[in-house]
């Protein structure tokens, strides 16, 4: 696979970042007359500049240029109409494409994005629906097993998520554990894998802890005296929850939604393993565009669209929680 070469100015950009970085260190050393506590922030700043800030510039550059390196919006047009590239080539070759019937509707990319957002939305809702009650239950002070259960939630995260996802295959596949069990009980086999529900299952399984922890934290750090005060003022258990415990857990919910929704939208690999390629998500599309189609320009444009969408949804969430405990993750 021939990787696209990085433009020469990409190297120069990194060198510039490095240069500014060194100048800043020297200035800081001069200003504080020696080593200051801010010294400890420098390694991370360097890391950020070289591996985050500069690549972001590069992605923006690729997204707005063609393979020859001149400015173009074709990459975005290609997002709206996946046949755009092909049509252009046909026009170049002298064909009239206006009346031409193309087998592909040309909305593959948009469809994939919409599908990804829809899947991420479903995943977030399910995680909230399962995770909130679980967190509420575990943060109950009278429930002595709560902290133990939280550890049980953490333990699977010690394992790589690829392995965890592959493990689901042994459960769900046609001759997997569940189907073997069903068959031995006299039921027929079920088609459990290679559909979007299996993908959703894998996503919920992987991202559920990211909902449970922030919610658990926001509830368990609440002063027990607050719910006692509510009860004292005449609120029964349900009203105490709706008027005190729940409103005070909103920062945790916002944080949880953010932490589940963001990785959900960009999910890749899970659809390929559990969805068997029938259910491509946007993360896979970006990966495929970069690595298989070897088109860094379109891939960058897709990445940029993704980032803007995530930024947009997080800023919407921030309105719910102006204090910004959840939004501060951004």
């Amino acid at each position, binding site marked *: 696979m021939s990787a696209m070469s990085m433009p020469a100015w990409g190297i120069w950009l990194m060198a510039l970042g490095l240069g500014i970085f060194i100048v800043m260190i020297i200035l800081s050393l001069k200003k504080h007359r020696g080593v200051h506590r801010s010294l400890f922030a420098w390694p991370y700043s360097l890391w950020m500049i070289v591996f985050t800030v500069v690549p972001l510039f590069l992605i923006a550059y690729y997204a707005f240029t063609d393979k020859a390196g001149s400015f173009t919006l074709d990459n975005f047009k290609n997002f709206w109409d996946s046949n755009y590239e092909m049509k252009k080539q046909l026009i170049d070759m002298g064909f009239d494409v206006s009346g031409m019937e193309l087998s592909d509707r040309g909305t593959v990319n948009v469809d994939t994005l919409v599908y990804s957002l829809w899947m991420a939305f479903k995943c977030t809702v399910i995680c909230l629906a399962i995770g909130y009650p679980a967190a509420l239950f575990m943060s109950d002070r009278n429930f002595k097993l709560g902290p133990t259960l939280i550890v049980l939630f953490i333990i699977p995260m010690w394992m790589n998520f690829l392995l965890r996802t592959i493990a689901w295959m042994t459960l769900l596949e046609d001759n997997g554990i569940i189907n073997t069990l069903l068959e031995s009980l006299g039921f027929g086999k079920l088609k459990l894998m290679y559909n979007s529900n299996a993908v959703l299952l894998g996503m919920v399984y992987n991202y559920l802890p990211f909902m449970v922890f922030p919610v658990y934290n926001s509830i368990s750090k609440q002063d027990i005296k*607050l719910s*006692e*005060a509510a*009860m*004292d*003022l*005449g609120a029964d258990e349900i009203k105490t929850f709706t008027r005190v415990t729940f409103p005070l857990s909103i920062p945790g919910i916002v944080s949880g939604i953010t932490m589940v929704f963001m990785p959900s939208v960009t999910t890749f690999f899970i659809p390929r393993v559990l969805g068997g390629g029938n259910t491509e998500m946007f993360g896979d599309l970006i990966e495929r565009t970069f690595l298989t189609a070897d088109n860094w320009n379109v891939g960058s444009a897709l990445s940029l669209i993704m980032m803007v969408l995530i930024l947009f949804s997080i800023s919407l969430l921030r309105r719910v929680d102006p204090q910004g405990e959840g939004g501060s993750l951004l």
Partner: protein
Amino acid sequence: MSQDNRLILLEDISKDFDRHTVLSDINLYIKKNEFLTLLGPSGCGKTTMLRIIGGFEFPTTGRVLFDGKDITDEPPYKRRVNTVFQKYALFPHLNVFENIAFGLKIAKLPKAEITSRVGKMLELVNLLGYEKRSVDSLSGGQQQRIAIARALVNEPEVLLLDEPLAALDYKLRKGMQLELKRMQQVLGITFIFVTHDQEEALTMSDTIVVMKDGFMRQIGTPKHIYDEPKDAFVANFIGESNIIRGIMPKDEVVHFCGLNFECVDSGFEKDEPVNVLIRPEDIVITDAEDVPLKGVVRSVIFKGVHYEMVIDAGNYLWKVHSTVMVPENSKVGLSVVPFNIHVMKLTDDELTGDEQ
């Protein structure tokens, strides 16, 4: 005392936490419109007792009666009792108005009535105009008054206060003590107040219950408890005191520091060992020649109203409060009128165990 006056009755209450007993043998009634203080050092069970009345804890044994009705197992929201919590426990997501209106909204009162009652409360606690403020923006004293308003607006029959003044500075605390007493008298509500501050208890209470290690040690009016403490612990906890071991050779005579003193107590066995309590302000300093108990002034500290002196006499260091200054190292005599010598029976612990 007529039976009808008894609003709350605690019967044979005890409470264990994980086999650790924090309350035992509690029998107490609380009258209507009474200002009752539960007083004791930390860990004496006073807060647990308050929480049992409030419904946040349930007694291991015994019953709680409210107006003659058994409420032992009723949850807090069914009790006609409201609480002012130690650190106020104001709702951080609600503003001042919403905090005070919380109970009224739960009770589904009409909006106009809520507004007018909250307004009246804010007036009572001197915080009109603070309705829209967030509770975090208020000072400790203001938060405290909001907590009181939030409880009182529900017009409870009993207000429980769990060391509500502990977090305030001295001046503010003094002011709030009088303020609380005033509110209690104006509103005619029963107050049950928990504190470890004996001065607070003496200032505000109609009745004080002195507690130690989960037991009630003594109950009475502030004056009664100060003047007639039942044992050395109560005497020490309420006010400053000189407590010395002695014996009772016969009625109205007590022997300590190698001398016989006249007193007003009787009903002891012959030569029964006792504790003798003499308050520092009851000791009169005289010339050394005039009285049998003589000593030397060891230290003098000026306290504003009086001098606090330590006088070494009869093998005991006496705390003495006097408005007259006597220089250090001078020889003085100490005298006490018989009425101010208070003889206390020894407790079982003191009789059997090592002397404290």
